[in-house]
């Protein structure tokens, strides 16, 4: 492999991406690598078993190239696409803004065009990787049962990733020119998160509203949807036909996506260096504070609380990432409302969703306050005891939660005082549990690493989720005055106990 060539750079990029991914999976500990490999293998086997269970029956009956099949395949294709687009936007943004090795590469005698091409192709591979990880077991089962035509899934996924990457490049360059480099970073990240969530949540909500179930497959196969779809000969079904292994369709979609990517690369390669330089120049440029000089605090506790609130207020990206977790609770909320609103009072249905949402929100905010301290050495060298530091941060989190939840809780309390009381208790407990879990798994990180918190400690992520679920279960049962509430109470305590036993603090 010749140094400086496209393939040489490609190998370099893939090696870096692999190590980055492994480091995320192992929380940066090389000793955990073996466990990560075993975990991946177990997960893959699990997926294979799941795929066999789901596909064996339908595939044995045979797959016919009719409208329902095309709708289903296209729907799944669109779902994969909705996952790939945000990932690609994130990667493209990072390619422009993350300085990492860009200074070194751009100061080398390698052509900008080569660098840009390699970076874009690396993004295509990275974007395909997650989808392939999820799809490959299903493809393997399909190949085993129904023949080699299902291998067409592979080029189809790459084609889809190429389109997602092209789209991401177009969006990023467009934003760069429209709103400038400073805002592009933030807006691109929010666009990525919202586009990803919208299709996933939108289809779920549509399925719930029509059938009272969260299953998207049911939506894709419904009479209502099939009725408005074009005939089997329509060009709309080209990607679906490609997935089913029809050679002409496969060749057309793959060639079209490759052509699109090539055009985009040629169109933007010349601007890559300039864009990166502008992004670096502006960085996170100067922003005048709107309320200068109004930061008055008489005690260290007040100072810490005010600091947390001010930083949160000024970081829309962080807030959007935190609220995004809550956004995903919309479908179950709508499902509950649709299925049980006739039999139960609405407040009882809203309560668990609210508790779950607050639990998730508390987890995110506590991580930001407890672990995401950008100047932890400053805070630790201050003449303030560790207890006061921690209490101040917890107070900041709980106050923010209280402000966010108060209007809804108040409304529930006015309609049904008992449910309101249960809601308050459950929210307080869910928030306290989330804070406890974050304290057990506290680490030193920068706030900008917020998205990595879930990969850094999978135990805390699961503990947070199970704790929120337990408190949500408790709330609904307690609101309905059922003794089952006690079971959920015990479960919530159990989650905390297990988290404590597995926490590094204890080790």
């Amino acid at each position, binding site marked *: 492999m010749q140094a400086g060539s496209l393939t040489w750079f490609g190998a370099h990029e893939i090696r870096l991406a692999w190590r980055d991914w492994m480091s995320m999976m192992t929380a940066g500990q090389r000793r955990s690598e073996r466990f990560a490999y075993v975990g991946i293998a177990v997960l893959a086997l699990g997926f294979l078993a799941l795929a066999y269970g789901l596909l064996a029956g339908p595939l044995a009956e045979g797959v016919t190239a009719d409208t329902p099949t095309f709708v289903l395949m296209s729907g799944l294709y669109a779902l994969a696409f909705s996952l790939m687009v945000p990932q690609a936007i994130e990667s493209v943004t990072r390619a422009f803004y993350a300085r990492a090795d860009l200074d070194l590469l751009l100061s080398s005698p390698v052509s900008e065009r080569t660098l840009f091409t390699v970076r874009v192709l690396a993004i295509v591979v990275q974007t395909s990787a997650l989808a392939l990880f999820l799809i490959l077991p299903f493809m393997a089962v399909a190949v085993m049962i129904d023949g080699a035509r299902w291998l067409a899934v592979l080029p189809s996924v790459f084609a889809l990733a190429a389109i997602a990457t092209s789209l991401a490049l177009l969006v990023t360059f467009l934003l760069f020119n429209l709103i400038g480099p400073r805002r592009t970073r933030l807006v691109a990240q929010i666009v990525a998160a919202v586009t990803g969530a919208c299709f996933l949540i939108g289809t779920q909500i549509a399925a719930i509203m029509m059938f009272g179930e969260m299953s998207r497959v049911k939506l894709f196969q419904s009479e209502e949807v099939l009725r408005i779809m074009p005939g089997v000969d329509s060009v709309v079904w080209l990607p679906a036909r490609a997935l089913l292994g029809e050679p002409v369709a496969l060749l057309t979609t793959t060639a079209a996506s490759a052509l699109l990517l090539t055009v985009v690369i040629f169109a933007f390669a010349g601007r890559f260096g300039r864009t990166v330089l502008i992004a670096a120049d502006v960085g996170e440029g100067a922003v005048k504070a709107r309320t200068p000089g109004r930061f008055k605090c008489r*005690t260290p506790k007040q100072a810490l609380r005010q600091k947390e609130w001010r930083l949160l207020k000024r970081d829309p990206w962080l807030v959007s990432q935190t609220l995004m977790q809550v956004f995903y609770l919309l479908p179950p909320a709508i499902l509950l409302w649709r299925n049980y609103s006739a039999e139960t009072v609405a407040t009882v249905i809203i309560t668990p969703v609210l508790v779950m949402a607050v639990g998730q929100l508390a987890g995110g905010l506590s991580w930001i306050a407890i672990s995401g301290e950008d100047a932890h050495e400053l805070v630790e060298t*201050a003449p303030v005891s560790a207890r006061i530091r921690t209490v101040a941060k917890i107070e900041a989190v709980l106050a923010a939660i209280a402000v966010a939840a108060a209007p809804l809780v108040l409304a529930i309390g006015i309609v049904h005082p008992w449910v309101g009381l249960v809601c308050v208790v459950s929210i307080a407990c869910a928030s306290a549990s989330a804070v406890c879990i974050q304290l057990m798994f506290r680490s030193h990180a920068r706030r900008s690493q917020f998205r990595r918190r879930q990969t850094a400690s999978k135990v805390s992520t699961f503990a947070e989720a199970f704790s929120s679920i337990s408190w949500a279960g408790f709330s609904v049962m307690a609101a309905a005055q059922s003794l089952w509430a006690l079971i959920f109470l015990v479960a919530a305590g159990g989650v905390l106990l297990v988290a404590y036993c597995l926490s590094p603090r204890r080790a």
Partner: protein
Amino acid sequence: MSQPALVLQDLAKSFDTPAVDDLSLTIESGQIYALLGPNGAGKTTTLRMVTGLLQPDAGRIEVYGIDVARDPIDAKRIMAWVPDEPMIYDKLTPREYLAFVGGLWGMDPDVAIRRAEDLIGWLGLEEVADTRCQGFSKGMRQKVALAGALIHDPKLLILDEPLTGLDAGSARQVKSVLRDHVARGVTVILTTHILDVAERMADRIAVIARGRLAAEGTLDDLRDRSRSGETNLEDLFLEVVADAAIADAETAGAADAADRAQPTEASSDKAAA
């Protein structure tokens, strides 16, 4: 005689290998004290133990007579620490940052505001005082961090590589602010790789090598002790570090030889048989 600003007694800290090894040092108050040493010598580890960011494995640290282990809060009240990578909040302005630090140290808000204005002026931060720190250059961040360290009027100021990354103008401003504070009785301990800075600024110098104190004194003291008659700090520093390495190698060699001379259990058994 006034109370020493810092006393380190038999201080030790190991990670995988010893980082600080039986270090004893007394630093008198009201002076600039430079801690020199090659990379990985244990300078930053020592200072992090003094500031309470690391727990020593052994030894005692006293700051103006306050035992850091026994009374960390009181010790912290009169100390300030500026790490080599300034840790400030990108979303706060320098003025807000200073108000926050003042709050952390429990200062009266009005006093903190007045003091912040003075520091902003001394360090030439007026134009950016109400601009968020995101996008500040390293030098600017360093100045904001230094202002934060000085706002509560510490008696002991500890700085890790304070002048790295500063332009000539900023470096002069920082040096002038440090000198002013020393003239008012503040003790400044700094680590630096810029030997010229130590030579020009420090009243006393300590050279640490492999976690141990290799030499200590004024520049003249170090010159007097030089075997080769070196007069500039760079040559003196290299000589001291080389001597420390030789002494270490000799100690290790002697220990190995002693080990070899000591019969192992197996060989003793054989001999007994």
